[in-house]
């Protein structure tokens, strides 16, 4: 299994509070991705990174920001959580690019009340 972890694995927070999710990899892969999974929508790309301090937006980036200061860590921040951001969040890594296989973390279940 690829060395990719996510923390926390579960979180319940209140509307309006900031939340940061962490993705950590030990594979030294260049590309890192954040997705959210919702019923009927599959996996939707939030943001991705193609190198340290190099990030770009995905399909559903509004309300989210990311940072990547080290190769191994990719942080996803909800500046002010809303109930519509209740979801399961997956981090993924890829050595080459999105065109090739990605390795996914175990997911973080976030509930915003």
């Amino acid at each position: 299994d690829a060395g990719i972890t996510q923390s926390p694995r579960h979180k319940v927070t209140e509307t309006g509070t900031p939340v940061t999710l962490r993705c950590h990899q030990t594979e030294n892969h260049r590309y890192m991705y954040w997705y959210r999974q919702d019923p009927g929508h599959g996996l939707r790309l939030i943001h991705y990174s193609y190198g340290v301090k190099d990030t770009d937006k995905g399909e559903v980036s509004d309300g989210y920001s990311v940072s990547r200061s080290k190769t191994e860590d990719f942080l996803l921040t909800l500046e002010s959580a809303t109930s519509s951001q209740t979801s399961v969040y997956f981090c993924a890594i890829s050595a080459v690019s999105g065109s090739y296989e990605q390795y996914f973390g175990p997911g973080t279940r976030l509930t915003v009340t």
Partner: protein
Amino acid sequence: DQQVKQNSPSLSVQEGRISILNCDYTNSMFDYFLWYKKYPAEGPTFLISISSIKDKNEDGRFTVFLNKSAKHLSLHIVPSQPGDSAVYFCAASAGDKVIFGPGTSLSVIP
């Protein structure tokens, strides 16, 4: 507007028979297609892929077919096994981004 569609939310198949999962896409710029498998409470895992320059790729019990003119691909699993019961996501890429379909839940009945 979904660029990658999986119109069957669920599929049930008898053990030993063939499972066929379908996927349609709208963007002709997609040049690489992938299938991922997901069990409950786990992250998706890569299953098989195909480049747009090919029309078939096979890996053991899994075969992916691509029909570019119809913008359609399918995943064949034969023979199907109970352990294949999972959600299958079709994905398409152009460059660094990947677009996933909504998934098809496959149940293989013993």
